């Protein structure tokens, strides 16, 4: 397994370089270093000298990807792309365009992001599986029919609607929890109730249907019939046998997102005032802060690759027949 993991880690390097290259190209197609300087220096009374100085200080005065004036290897290394990308692989994210330390920001914002994403993930997984199994248990009855209808209805509604409706009903009309905000330590709990509930509900439709499909597929298999023939109660058949055998597709979807939970949610964090990494990314895009965008995309790609490796490892845990070679 170790060889397999080492090989996957090595595969990740060209992928990360590619992601960096694409991010870099896309970003600089839309924003020039001059645009970035203007964004940081403000709209009023910005002189060309100030822009030149800003670019020079941050290394944005160099050629983007190829320096024709340099010799040899420096043609590639004395460029914005190389200088800004190489440090990423050593996890040196540098400073945001407004001068603030990106690593510090990521560290401090990871906890609030996780504070929402982790409960939503765990609670959601449990709730979706239970609901899917109930629907499977009552398959071809009114419970299953209306359950599917409800799932389709839930899937059809935008997540923004859940947020606004949730804030309106639970916070504004019923005054049960704060509309938005975040606190330190245990104080954070009252702010997390609503986003977690909304997070779970907004994902319920698609996930429950998906799990229902998986379970229904398993229900037709021989081992289920054998289990029933032995007289096992349906709850044992569902939770003990069907669920266990449907774990591989569930894990494929679930484990891969675990590392990405650190990155938070773009919309929910914005609406609920959670100072997480999702809102950090949104702010960076709005302020054309390439340093932060690049760091977050890099981190996202890296975590995704980690997620995929973890998924592979998790297969071996739930299915002893699988070997990673």
């Amino acid at each position, binding site marked *: 397994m170790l060889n397999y993991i080492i090989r996957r880690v090595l595969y990740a390097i060209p992928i990360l370089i590619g992601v960096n290259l694409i991010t870099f190209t896309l970003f600089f197609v839309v*924003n020039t270093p001059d645009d970035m300087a203007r964004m940081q220096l403000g709209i009023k009374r910005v002189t060309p000298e100030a822009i030149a100085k800003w670019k020079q200080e941050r290394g944005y005065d160099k050629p983007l990807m190829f320096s024709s004036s340099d010799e040899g290897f420096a043609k590639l290394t004395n460029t914005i792309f190389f200088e800004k990308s190489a440090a990423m692989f050593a996890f040196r994210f540098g400073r945001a365009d407004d001068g603030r330390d990106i690593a510090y920001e990521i560290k401090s914002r990871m906890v609030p992001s996780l504070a929402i994403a982790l409960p939503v993930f765990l609670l959601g997984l449990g709730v979706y599986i239970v609901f899917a199994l109930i629907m499977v248990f009552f398959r071809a009855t009114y419970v299953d029919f209306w359950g599917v209808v409800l799932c389709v209805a839930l899937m059809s509604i935008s997540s923004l609607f859940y947020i606004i409706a949730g804030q309106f009903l639970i916070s504004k009309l019923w005054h049960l929890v704060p509309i938005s*905000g975040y606190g330190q330590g245990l104080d954070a709990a009252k*702010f997390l109730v609503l986003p977690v509930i909304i997070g779970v509900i907004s994902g319920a439709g698609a996930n429950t249907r998906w799990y229902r499909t998986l379970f229904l597929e398993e229900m037709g298999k021989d081992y289920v019939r054998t289990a029933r023939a032995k007289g096992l109660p349906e709850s044992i058949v569902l939770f003990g046998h069907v669920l266990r055998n449907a774990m591989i597709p569930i894990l494929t979807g679930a484990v891969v997102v675990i590392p990405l939970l650190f990155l938070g949610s773009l919309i929910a964090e914005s609406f609920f005032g959670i100072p997480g990494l999702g809102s950090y990314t949104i702010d960076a895009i709005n302020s054309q802060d390439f340093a932060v965008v690049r760091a977050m995309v890099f981190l996202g790609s890296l975590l995704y690759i980690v997620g995929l490796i973890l998924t*592979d490892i998790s297969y071996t845990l739930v299915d002893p027949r699988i070997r990673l070679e």
Partner: protein
Amino acid sequence: MKAAVFTEPLKPSSLSPLARATVPLHDRIHETGRAIPRCLEYLLVILTALMCACSGPWNNPYPESDTGKNILYGAFAERPKHLDPVQSYSSNEILITAQIYEPPLQYHYLKRPYELIPASAAKMPIVEYFDEKGTRLPDNARDEQIAYTIYEISIMPGIRFQPHPAFAKDQQGEFLYHRLPEKELADIHKLGDFPHTDSRELTAEDYVFQIKRLAHPRLHSPIFGLMSDYIAGLKEYAETLRAADEAQLKEQGRDAYLDLNNYPLAGAETVDRYTYRVKINGKYPQFKYWLAMPFFAPIPWEAERFYNQKGLAEKNINLDWYPLGTGPYMLTENDPNRVMVLEKNPNFHGETYPSEGMPGDGQAGLLGDAGAPLPFIDKVIYSRERESIPRWNKFLQGYYDASNIGSDSFDQAVQLTGQGEATVTEAMQEQGIRLETAVATSTNYMGFNMLDPVVGGVGKQGREAARKLRQAISIAVDYEEYVSIFANGRGVPAQGPIAPGIAGHREGKEGINPVVYDWVDGRPRRKPIEAARKLLAEAGYPDGMDAKTGAPLVLYFDVTTRGTEDKSSLDWMRKQFRKLNIQLVVRNTDYNRFQDKIRKGNAQIFEWGWNADYPDPENFLFLLYGPQRKVGNEGENAANYSNPEYNRLFDRMKNMENGPKRQQIIDRMITILRHDSPWLWGYHPKEYGLYHAWYGNIKANRLSNNNVKYFRIDAGMREQKRSEWNKPVLWPAIAGLIVLVASMIPAVVVYRRRERGAGITSTTTEIHMS
């Protein structure tokens, strides 16, 4: 997945013995049946416990310990980029910086037109003019005679900086934290981690030090370009500092400290401990307004020395994150992702509430605190609120003390009386919310690029035709309608570039733009569209067709990328041009490309705006001054308009004191502008603010930002209202729970029935199938 290899067939996980699975079946069903009401019981117990535990409203986003305290609650949408006074220039930043830094001057809180008064200065600056030989000139000397101006500013003795570790000294009198070893730095993560703080008296040297910082090579002061034209020697000073910095960087590396005290600046020097002088090239009367901005607030050299230590910047411990001032408040918590907290500066030198204002201020209760010591509020908490919906709802719940009004909530908040006056709706009145309105010192306009051959014209005849075309469009685009539809009436159609409340602006009949309006029944009335059509025909486009080619007239409107919500306003704009049979093509682009087009002169018609820096007509009229044009000069004249007579008059007007002579020149300049119509004058936005009943001493003031010290909060009333408005409503949750439980009962019954008959059913099925 290539690497995953199946090594043996998948078996059903039937490892549990049959007996173990079947025997407890009944018990399990029994437990399942009981579990539901038990859950309900638990929930009710938890809910009751919660109700008992929370004495206040459940949805209170603030800690219980803050209840009843003299705290002002506000919100901010965008995190401030800079809190260093030399770099900060945005309106969201000055909300914070103006409360912390104290420049020598400030605006009178109540008086209008805006009046400068001393802040940390002991009196208003002494302004003296000199010729090239250094001979003192009389105050009425001609501009050409004046070689330089001296501003002598005396500050009040006894003012002290807020407590800060930069001032902390040991028993030997050495600074504790000016040479931090790396070992000590390891335990420092924020400014509060320094256990010792101290203060010292403010001196004139601190003001001079800040002026020097405008030229610091590692700082980007947005006003350096402007100030280097005026403050004697500032440009050369910047060169000196740059050379010194580069030399130091080579010798000592990136963390070298550039000590500005070693480099004197000719244009700023101290006279004595409490007096300093600023030398201005020529005459620049507007300099006094800059003295009321944080750019000229004092910064102690100790702060610069402290923050420039190796390792602190990496931890965001710098002046941009932790400001240091002498003002009424100090920033005690800076988490711009979540909250920024200002608390009373214990060393504030003291100031009293103004005892005079405008007629009506007394009646409005604005003079009730006359002579009372400032500030009234102990603490200010600004929470980050990115989205308008939660911000608005929290205001209605009493968790923010004031709010602006978004277009979504406008109808909910404001209604217009029969006389067209805006008031709050009945629902707002019931909550005791009141509305304050003020016309902003800014202007939103639509500009024509005068370099464009169609709207700017080429040759004498072409320019004349283009002028008539611009005038025709000025009449056709109905800004009264625009303000009514798209700004909910929150704006005043502009008659020229100068905003109301600024010297040079004229009201009434003499203030109207005769190119666009007639004075009818005591009010301006837009000219009929026929007048515009006539002008269009004279411009060579009868009925919107080019008289020479017969082709329809097509104009291009450059706008920044907008969402779907702006589609209606763009459609409306097309409709306005269609009145003249002109086809308006909207060229939509992102803001970067838009700015690029404006800089290169590639736009034809565009929208832009301007917020005044200070209450002087020069700050508006320079936007159309020839040498300020964007193309070639990178100035602020986006229309690239240049009229020799206007430019001459501007040169004369800019240095004059307000008075009839200056007004006469301004009138002539405005007449030229109206005639040439390089802009559609657009409108001056009107700002609407909503305030709760417990919020006192509010007078809208766009130019002075250090207003928090004047505000007053009735914390008792706020707590009472919050409790009243935010009583938890539990019945929907309980009803929902009951419905959920009720809906589960048939399922449980079916489950039990199935489980009992499972073996038989399965067997039957198997037999039947076989």
